[in-house]
């Protein structure tokens, strides 16, 4: 009997710690979070849902913690351990354009004429590459006088195995392939 009282007492301590840390982590939430909840559970205005959310679910959670508090400690410790390991992930292999991906050499004028975007609702700037114009300008600012601009199309295998079609423009400098500007990325699987 004493063991049972001791076990439940420790459960009360764990429950108190969980409850206090949960309360301390609460802060005023944005309207965005309310929008999220309505997206997930549009029926959450019902009285029955509120009873479940605010009374039944917390009560069941409290009982569960009192009964299985060692599991709570185990999962919390494991979560903290994996959180520390997350930062040690290897960097993914980076995409690079190969010479076999090159399609055609084009002048800057040709590209900017070809890549002008039009829209009947005027929802795009009247500039080469439309909404991507700023990024395009940054790309060509890095160009040197002898650089060539080539269009390219490549099949890229993602580190998790799926294939993507990637296309755009790339700088070629003395036969070596430099920075690229992506204009298309499409999953092929």
């Amino acid at each position, binding site marked *: 009997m004493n063991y049972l009282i001791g076990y439940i007492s420790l459960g009360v301590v764990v429950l108190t710690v969980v409850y206090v840390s949960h309360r301390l982590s609460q802060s005023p939430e944005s309207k965005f979070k309310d929008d999220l909840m309505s997206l997930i559970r549009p029926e959450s205005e019902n009285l029955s849902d509120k009873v479940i959310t605010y009374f039944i679910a917390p009560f069941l959670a409290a009982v569960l913690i009192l009964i299985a508090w060692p599991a709570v400690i185990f999962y919390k410790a494991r979560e903290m351990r994996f959180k520390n390991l997350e930062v040690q992930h290897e960097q993914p292999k980076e995409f690079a354009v190969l010479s076999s991906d090159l399609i055609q050499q084009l002048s800057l004028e040709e590209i900017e004429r070809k890549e002008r975007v039009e829209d009947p*609702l005027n*929802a795009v700037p009247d500039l080469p590459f439309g909404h991507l114009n700023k990024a395009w300008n940054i790309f060509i600012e890095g160009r040197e006088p002898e650089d060539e601009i080539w269009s390219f199309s490549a099949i890229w295998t993602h580190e998790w195995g799926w294939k993507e079609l990637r296309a755009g423009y790339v700088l070629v400098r003395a036969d070596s392939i430099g920075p690229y500007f992506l204009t298309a990325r499409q999953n092929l699987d």
Partner: protein
Amino acid sequence: MTAQIAEKLYYEGQKLSMCSEPLGNYFAFTGENPGFESNCTALWRGYVGTWEIKGGRLYMIELTGTLEDGSDATLATIFPNFPDRVFAHWYSGTIRIPQGKMLDYVHMGYGSTYERDLLLTIERGVVTESTVRENGISEDADAPDGYGVGAMTVFPRKEKDGNE
């Protein structure tokens, strides 16, 4: 990983759930991402975009989210000169719109399957093809109708000074 909250799409007079993220390509192509705060496991990208197919073209018409500094994000945060409507000319791919009752719930990404998928093929922001893929008929009368997320963990929101 948790099942993800879908984007919203207005198409042929209906408001639909769209299991594709065209804005992800924009961030990849420009290298610019304003830095969204992810406050739940069902929304790792940190924002929800609202899209519309109008005149056979894909437009982004709204964005809701929270930035890492705590401020609200809107369409104007990313496209300051186009706060109401943006032509998604950078997007080529297939947009998946699940319809009907759920056949199989997968608690990861957009992995759940539904009775039908409306598939819209987009080329540089223009709809080029529309097909329907039949995945089966649910035998469960109580199966959820339409895309949804089963469960998620909500994180406490960060303070504006960076403390949690």
